[in-house]
């Protein structure tokens, strides 16, 4: 993941379930969507995206 703010490579430091994003038909193992959370090491940018299956 590249930081959209400064272009540095971001660190994937956490996976977090977002229950509010769960919709009927989604993969139900976690009863929510697993978000990968990324931190930019150069600027305070935080980005998340659904876990890549």
């Amino acid at each position: 993941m590249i930081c959209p703010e400064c272009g540095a490579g971001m660190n994937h430091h956490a996976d977090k379930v977002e229950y509010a994003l769960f919709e009927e038909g989604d993969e139900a193992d976690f009863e929510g969507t697993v978000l990968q959370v990324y931190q930019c090491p150069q600027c305070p940018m935080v980005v998340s995206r659904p876990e890549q299956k």
Partner: protein
Amino acid sequence: MSNRPLYLPVILGTTRQGRSSEHVARFVQELVERRADVESELIDIRELSVPPDDEGEEAKDPVFSKQMARADGIILVVPEYNHGYPGTLKHVLDSNLKEYVHKAVGICGVSAGRFGGARVIENLLPVLRELGLVTIFWDGNFSSVGKLFDAEGKILDPSYEKRIEKFLGELIWMSRVLRYGREQVTSVSD
């Protein structure tokens, strides 16, 4: 690790008129500002725009989200209302998620009685954990808040400064460690 100053905003967690917690928030924020290599500001949830009938991305106040993304740690100043936390604070906190993950949080409980918001702190811990925040083991406990400040908002009991300095020391340590982790230590969940 990046060398920008730590950013530790203080969130004033009530919108009520006549709130004594505002004195507490200003007192704590002043102590944070004295610390070298730490930046802070007071975030008053009364000034945020989070619609009461929506949630998640749609409900976000963009300025608040940016502050939370920038934050390395958060200080919550929370009054105890009937042993619980203000619903408005919960609604504001719920409007973000990724912005909080692996960040430190410390709580300053405020109460009219003797227990210094101990019950609201205990009630808030599981909420903060689910938001991805990391709680510290020092708290601020502001008891008998109606008698704790003079009319100008100056604290009358000098012992609070010493205790809050300890609280801030732990929060800063945890914030530094977690920033290093967010920036340098990759998830091992796969």
